[in-house]
């Protein structure tokens, strides 16, 4: 399903970010543009089979989100290759495709299209989305009049309506008030338990232990370990205590 082969990604960091043609040319002529190499990921190599739930753990800045972005196709690796078979639905940041001037209804179709849903699917699931988001008659009002909680509820409802082949989750999203949080958490669990392949980043080891079949541990862009959940989680805990 997902094959990640020897993936590395390198950033060239320029000391001062050049923003204009003039500056660029001047500095290039002077030979002042210096780069510093930074490997955000180095030689990541693993495979996820169909239906597996894989947790990704590691400290902040270890490269977990970068890896998710590479798998969902947003970033291209400098070296190595990624082969993904199936429809990927990334739940990285919700509601990034919303347009403030459009109504809730129009945004459902726009955002759905961005996530790669088809027209028939959206029409069929439209009522379900509205119902889950609990927006009711507000769905016909432009988004700029929504509260931030309402926007998050709508975004969550759109993102989770689908049954994708591969689901990419950056932290379990629990949004809105307490009631909605419980509801959304239940929905996430349902999705992740429903036989789809899941890549799941979390800092809560309890969730990882509860959900995942396998765990990938990354530290400073390097792969530390990949294997059975219990074993890797224990190792990770020990290293945390050790520090």
């Amino acid at each position, binding site marked *: 399903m997902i094959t990640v082969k020897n993936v590395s990604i390198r950033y060239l960091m320029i000391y001062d970010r050049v*923003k204009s043609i003039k500056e660029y040319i001047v500095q290039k002529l002077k030979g002042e543009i210096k780069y510093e190499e930074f490997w955000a990921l180095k030689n990541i190599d693993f495979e996820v089979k169909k239906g597996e739930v894989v947790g990704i753990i590691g400290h902040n800045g270890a490269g977990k989100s970068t890896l998710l972005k590479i798998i969902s196709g*947003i970033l291209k690796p400098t070296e190595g290759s990624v082969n993904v078979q199936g429809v990927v639905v990334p739940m990285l940041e919700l509601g990034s495709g919303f347009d403030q001037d*459009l109504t809730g209804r129009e945004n459902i179709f726009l955002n759905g*299209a961005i*996530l790669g849903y088809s027209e028939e699917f959206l029409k069929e699931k439209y009522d379900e989305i509205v119902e889950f988001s609990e927006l009711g008659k507000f769905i016909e009002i432009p988004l700029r009049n929504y509260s931030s909680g309402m926007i998050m509820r709508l975004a969550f409802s759109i993102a989770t309506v689908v049954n994708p082949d591969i689901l990419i989750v950056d932290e379990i999203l629990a949004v809105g008030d307490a009631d909605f949080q419980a509801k959304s958490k239940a929905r996430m669990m349902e999705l992740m338990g429903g036989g789809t392949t899941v890549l799941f980043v979390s800092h809560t080891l309890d969730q990882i232990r509860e959900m995942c079949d396998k765990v990938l541990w990354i530290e400073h862009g390097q792969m530390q370990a990949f294997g059975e959940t219990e074993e890797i989680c224990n190792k990770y805990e020990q290293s945390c205590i050790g520090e």
Partner: protein
Amino acid sequence: MNAKKLKKGCIIALILYVILAIMFYVIGGQQLQYRTVKTDMLNPSMVIGEITKENVFEQSLKMEGDILTELSLMGATYQRENTGTLSLEIVDLDGQILAKRDIKVDTLKDNEVFHVPFYDGINIPENRFVLRISAPEATEGNAVTLYAGNTVSTSRYEVSAPISIDDKIKLNGQPQEYMLCVDIISSQELLFGQYYWYGALAILLILVVFCIYLYRKNQNKMHSRILNVFIVMERYQYLIKQLVARDFKTKYKRSVLGIFWSFLNPLLTMLVQYVIFSTIFKSDIPNFAVYLLIGIVCYSFFSEATTMALGAIVSNATLITKVYVPKYIYPLTRVMSSAINFLLAMIPLGIVLVITRTPIKPAILLLPFAVICLFMLCLGIGMFLASSMVFFRDTQFLWGVVSMLWMYATPIFYPETIIADEIMPIYKCNPLYHVVRFIRIIIIDGVSPEPKAYVLCLITCIIPLLIGAFVFKKSQDKFILNL
């Protein structure tokens, strides 16, 4: 990809091609077969003297085409009623009379151009002939005359024309110091028209072979770049539709008149410029309102589409860093929504056509060709600007200046005739010039342009598209690092 769908698509494409090829031949008509060449008249400055039975004039002439179709002369009557006939003979170099026309003298008007058409066309060997003018019945005091001259106009100045001894008009064999004022319209057969059906058939064969090739590849589940394009198009067509609808909806969202601005904007711009250029700066362009509106509509599409595409990547930064979508979709949808705007602006153009009583001819069906060319041009430049904008935010300010320059480098509100010959090559490189000229020919003149115009339109628009697409493709992986 679904085999049935592919089969259906291929068959539709082939049928469409055949229909288009036939329609094009019918609409294009004469313009595809012959090229019409018109020589310019000298400035009429004097008359050649009374044409009587004693005075026979002979003027040797040279034309560019092979077939003579019309002569225009400027006559004068000495402000009196004359009688009799004026006889014009076309004589070839061997002295043989190829054609003869008798004109009733009383139909001539003083100081006015009259036309002598040869409807069947006269094939003239070596493209040289002598025009013999005589009036067998006329006597002094009952004769007309024709205008002659020895100067030509170059832009705004009159200069004396170099007239060689052979070009001078001869009165009873004696060369005079001037040349007859005459316009020669001749036509030349074009290879394009002669070989049209062979070319059309060849392309059809290529298409058939190509379709079979695609079908085979698809059946064997082989990877093909072209098939991939179709698959991506199919997969993202709903997204493209949504993004175009978004651009369009948000554009007029909070305005009272909403979508009517798409009609009103070009109309009002035209009115302002029309008033300025028909009162303050006099211009003598025939059908100026239509002439102007075509220029304005094309340019505003170009300017709007490129400016919108310029920000396509930068303003969608939040999306690009979160969700994977082929990045060219963003500039593409921006250009598409401007194109819809452009098509809406065609409605006021239609209204103006009706008001000015411009006859609407079938040649207007050639409009899609020009629109497609213009679309490719906008997309190419839009893609180039969008990727340039990611790395250098100066692009937006620079483009403001460049697009203004581009506007003045396109004959939108001034006639083509004021362009000096020295800078004409620059205009020939301007795709917008070719497109605007193309549309003006099919709408104002109501005929298809010459085949060369199609080629120029297509080439000058495809080159920017290829450059834009190449730059975009090369740089798109680095976008995310600079957003």
